[in-house]
């Protein structure tokens, strides 16, 4: 009904391979971007930024990163929390060592450092796959958290063992520390998310993405037609690590401000991001957004409905959340392994013909 592609002719291969081939999608994308960049910053307050927008933006980056590795390249990873911690600690060390450098540089460098660490932990993927690789990345998770706990150099020998984000700015606007205004932290994270999403899309629609997907779908055939498995797998680990590192840096510096590694970047974080990817849709950038939005919004909605409207005790609502997420994972794995993104695709296909299905 509201979704038409008839009359939308493409006359070149560039037009056919653009991000949003359908005019309607393209306009909607521009509209969303305009609202996100030009409207929301004027209305955002601390509650909205901290409860919903910042976690959504930052988890989306992490989910895109993990989706590249798991959804596009088919390499299971349970080390997301550990890799986010690498990003956070890299960012902390850079922030304290070079206070005068812009936060943009720090976050990007943290991503780069995490990419290198991720590639190193991706080396076992050349030999093992599936469950065994999952266990290898799980080792990365525990090792990295242990490392950041036990080596005082990483937290600058502070007595508490925590890291605290000092106040840093971008072109004079404070984006970290307790005095950062909500709109600044929001815009800062949004810029990173936008760039990451565009880069992810560019990579996945081209040669690199096709060699990742070839490895995912049938690795032996991929190698015989000319995919270098070493290059494909390690580049997926690298790109994934870059995004996850950025999200870890933002999570620490912009969102939380103070971090204790075991608490903020434990194994639960790895599972949370993995659930986002599964519920949102493996192998879909849109799915990463959908999964992140779903799992960020779910606790907020449950709290509003359960505690505020129905007057239930807080702990019962918190437990309910676990039950619901668990049930949803099972339902999605059985009924729709491709997640919300697939539901959305099916809905679109139906809507193309609605209300006259023939």
């Amino acid at each position: 009904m509201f979704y038409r592609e008839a009359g939308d002719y493409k006359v070149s291969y560039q037009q056919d391979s653009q991000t949003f081939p359908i005019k309607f999608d393209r306009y909607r994308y521009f509209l969303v971007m305009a609202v996100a960049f030009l409207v929301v910053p004027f209305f955002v307050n601390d509650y909205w930024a901290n409860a919903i927008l910042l976690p959504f933006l930052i988890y989306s980056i992490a989910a895109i990163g993990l989706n590249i590795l798991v959804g596009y390249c088919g390499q299971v990873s349970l080390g997301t929390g550990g890799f986010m911690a690498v990003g956070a600690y890299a960012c902390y060390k850079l922030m304290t060592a070079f206070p005068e450098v812009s936060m943009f540089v720090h976050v990007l460098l943290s991503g780069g450092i995490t990419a290198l660490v991720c590639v190193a932990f991706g080396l076992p993927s050349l030999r093992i796959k599936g469950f065994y690789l999952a266990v290898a990345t799980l080792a990365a998770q525990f090792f990295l958290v242990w490392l950041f706990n036990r080596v005082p150099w990483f937290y600058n020998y502070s007595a508490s063992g925590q890291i605290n984000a000092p106040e840093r700015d971008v072109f004079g606007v404070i984006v970290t520390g307790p005095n950062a205004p909500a709109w600044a932290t929001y815009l800062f994270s949004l810029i990173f998310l936008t760039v990451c999403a565009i880069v992810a899309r560019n990579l996945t629609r081209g040669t690199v993405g096709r060699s990742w997907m070839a490895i995912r779908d049938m690795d032996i055939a991929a190698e015989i037609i000319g995919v270098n498995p070493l290059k494909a797998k390690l580049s997926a680990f690298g790109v994934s690590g870059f995004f996850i590192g950025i999200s870890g840096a933002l999570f620490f510096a912009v969102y939380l401000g103070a971090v204790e590694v075991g608490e903020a970047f434990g194994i639960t974080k790895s599972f949370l991001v993995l659930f986002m990817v599964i519920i949102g849709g493996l192998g879909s950038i849109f799915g990463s957004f959908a999964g992140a939005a779903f799992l960020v919004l779910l606790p907020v909605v449950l709290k509003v409905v359960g505690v505020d409207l129905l007057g239930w005790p807080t702990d019962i609502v918190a437990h309910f959340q676990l039950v619901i997420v668990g049930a949803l994972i099972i339902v999605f794995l059985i009924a729709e392994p491709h997640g919300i993104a697939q539901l959305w695709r099916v809905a679109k296909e139906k809507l193309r013909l609605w209300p006259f299905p023939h």
Partner: protein
Amino acid sequence: MKDMDDSSVTEDGRTIGGVVMEMKNITLRFGGVVAIKDISFDIREGEIRAIIGPNGAGKSSMLNVISGFYVPQEGDVWFRGSKRPAMRPYEVARQGIARTFQNIALFDGMSVLDNVMTGRLNYMKTNIFQQALWRGRAEAEETENREVVERIIDFLEIQAIRKTPVARLPYGLKKRVELARALAAEPKLLLLDEPMAGMNVEEKEDMSRFILDANDEFGTTIALIEHDMGVVMDLSDRVVVMDYGKKIGDGTPDEVRNNQAVIDAYLGVSHD
């Protein structure tokens, strides 16, 4: 052994050039099982070379040796005039050898177009940073290769399904998409592992036409394994016959048809 350069013209007017690939005394063992035993043969430029034999004769193993998936214990593979060193399958692909598989090995999660585009991987030179930027070199390269792929799609008459995920396609079309992916690589040598297995007569006729056309139009050298004798005898210029890992015949279809060892292998020998 024939001279490298001598070329001949077939009765239907195609030119067969010098030797492209030569297998010299190949022996392949899996533990105690000898899959291929001391086999030598050559493939000449522009010809259609068939490898036939009863089940378990070692034909697919032979193809896997050519495509670098198996490394033979003894013997050498000579490709385009030089001995091929030990290399990984993707390096062999980069040298210009493409293949299809007996059990379709398409990438199920991708569309037909993307599957065929993977055949062009070896022509993609942009690095990951240019790809991330997309505008400029990466986009231009994508478009150039897309044009080649569209010609192949056109050639194999699969335009209507180019955006369909391959998992949704019927068997015969999947086989055709796999051929498209191999042809997209513009191979110097194309290996087809039972391209017509499980097809009905009409599909076999289509496939035979595509194989002949590819050979005719692009001059592709083709080595194929096939069980349908009618097809093999009609398509191929020369035939290698294998049985229990040994070569029992080699020559034109007519020579092979009248070879007593070949007849024995296919029909059995009486033991009285």
